[in-house]
């Protein structure tokens, strides 16, 4: 079994933790030893959130070392840059086109960088950068809260696991009234990523 290290990052309230919980269960059900840990602390109140998910034959540390993440899954543009150093050279970056402006960027002391600048930093490590139109997908499926499911769909295209394993977990977790839009969100995440790969 190949070890898989996924760093999921974003802002408090975006559903990063739920996505990483799902990732962990999917890994466990696929027979991996799994550890996952979040750094949030006071982050429920709008701070930066990072979740480490590790699948392997035997996992010791729950945290991923800098330079060791196979995947950097980012729910917010500037958060991608914040955690870029954790990405393995040549690793995969999946970014939602979501901007959440921090208070610190309001005064002008820390202007919010544009995507091209952020991308430039990421390109020092990898060319595999996928910007997912998550906002548009959320609107299309009528469920903006499904951002985390869009991102799971995107990630699933890189992992050698049966799609049903992902869908099963979504079916278990999502309340009935959001199930249809969530499944659609997953598939749209898959499609967008596949189309970018070609």
């Amino acid at each position, binding site marked *: 079994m190949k070890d898989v290290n996924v760093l999921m990052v974003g802002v408090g309230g975006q559903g990063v933790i739920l996505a990483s919980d799902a990732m*962990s269960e999917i890994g466990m059900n696929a027979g991996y030893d799994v550890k996952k840990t979040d750094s949030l602390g006071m982050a429920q109140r709008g701070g930066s959130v990072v979740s480490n998910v590790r699948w392997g034959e035997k996992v010791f*540390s729950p*945290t991923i070392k800098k330079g060791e993440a196979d995947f950097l899954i980012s729910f917010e543009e500037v958060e991608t840059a914040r955690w870029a150093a954790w990405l393995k050279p040549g690793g995969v970056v999946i970014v939602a086109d979501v901007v959440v402006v921090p208070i610190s960027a*309001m005064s002008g002391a820390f202007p919010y960088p544009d995507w091209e600048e952020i991308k430039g930093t990421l390109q020092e490590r990898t060319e595999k950068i996928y910007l997912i139109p998550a906002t548009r997908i959320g609107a299309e499926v009528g469920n903006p809260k499904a951002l985390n499911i869009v991102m799971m769909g995107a990630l699933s295209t890189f992992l050698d696991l049966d799609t049903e394993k992902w869908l099963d977990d979504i079916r278990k977790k999502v309340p009935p009234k959001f199930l249809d839009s969530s499944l659609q969100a997953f598939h749209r995440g898959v499609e967008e990523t596949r189309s970018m790969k070609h």
Partner: protein
Amino acid sequence: MKQLLSGNEAIALGAYHAGVGFATAYPGTPSTEILQTMAPMEGMYTEWSINEKVALEVGMGAAYGGVRTLVIMKHVGLNVAADPFFALATTGTNAGIVVISCDDPGEHSSQGEQDNRHFAKFAKVPMLEPTDSQEAYDLMDRAFKISEEFDTPVLFRSTTRISHCKCTVDVSRERTTDLKKPGFLRSSAKYVMVPSNARVHRVAMEERIARLREWVEEFPLNEMILNDRKLGVISSGVAYQYAREVFKNASFLKLVTTYPIPANLVRKFAAEVEKVIVVEELDPHLEEEVRLLGIEVSGKEFIPIIGELNPEIVEAGAVKAGLISESVLPSAVATSKVTIPPRRPQLCAGCPHVGPEFVLRKLGFDPNIKPSPTPREMTENEIVVTSDIGCYTLGVYEPLGALDTCACMGASIGHSTGLEKAGIPNKSVAVLGDSTFMHSGITGLADMVYKQSEGTVIILDNSTTAMTGHQGHPGTGVSVTGEQGPLVNLEKLVEGIGIKDLNVVSVYDLDAFETTLKRCVENAEPSVIIARGPCVLREKIKWTPRQVDQDLCVECHDCLDVGCPAICIWDEKVQIDSAVCVGCGVCEQVCPSEAIVEMKS
């Protein structure tokens, strides 16, 4: 059966399977989820106690009464509960009692960092520390057996990374039914700590720890792993996992009984390897214990004493000590070219604390003096704002920047009284939340009345314990599982303490709050303002969002001083994000040009 469990969930399930019938706690990150996991389990009594001291005292009562009991708190909670903790170590127990301390290395969500392993040695009680969720689950059963066999509380120490890390756990047991019936065995010799009895117990405590020293030698979860004999690593807790990651071929002694340590096992391990090091988070607890055995050992020379460890830090230490020649993994090379705006936690859009803190900044801080980390003299009319532990502590950050002190639960009131009685020329105001007031503000307020203080206490009453995830407290009457029960009436409590100048105002009416505060500050008797408004996160409030009428906006940016996450400058204009705005109307009251209005639907 395999389950994915956080350390906290594993502790809860392990304790439940060990037959625990009684659990008490005060919420505190990273410990909160333990009680919440246990509450719905069948046959459990659970309570959010008013504070950790009471939680432990209630727990002691239950354990004296023959019910296996778990008492849960964060590291600083054990400071509050230290008095009954030492008392319990002295009396011993009837049924097993385990005290969980969840430490927070790196202060993810705490006002300070401390290594609570010292408490085990200090109170002369055994301590267990898991290295992952599996061990947390497995150890809990043994913790209760130790407690009963040795007539002692057991300190069970977790850390943020153990409590909040999810791992695959083999859940092998079911709830034990082999438990005695509740019943108190009357014995003043055992339970009444008058000096004559306490002296007898004091001797028993030393005998107990001596017996434990022998007993831990055979503890099956301490594990010796012999690989390359050049280096032997002694470790515990999550640091063990990091060390396994870094020293791939070394020999290991993993200790879960970290007080007392198994001396002979350590000696045996040291004899097997050429060099012994200790990798542990925070203080050199194990290192000192090992050194006392006369073994040559190092650790804190190269492993930091401050903050949370991780594999990178352990690796850097190992390189520094010459234990590994170079980084064994690809190093982090990318240094971001972009300036990344910091994203610190902030008060939510519509947070009920924002209005009062905005007014405190306005009244209490000279607008002509720029905020600076350097201590400065206060000007004549400024007010000292002593504060406390809770979401509202976030008001220390700009643009609110409205707080002067925050030390520990309930301290705001004492600070204010102390400043006043010391004779400083400025007035002072104490600010704390409803849950914190219940936890340890009541005594401070009684002291204020007793000392004829002229101070003002603002209780920000959002009717919950918000920061830790909306737990109930005596002022709300809400139980762990969310049922409404009898409550302590805040106004009557404050009046009963002797406060005559009591005011209740809405947090959303800035003018009323400001007028009341000005009057209370000038009043020569102690006063209380209950500033009331629900936690928007809990109540999921959504009134009519506001928008900026760009024709009226004069770009003074006064509204940005509110520090609301819904307001930002985008395309060089002040904009309000209607998806984020809950319509509290605070910014509207702040705007001098009436440019902020209700959104037209």
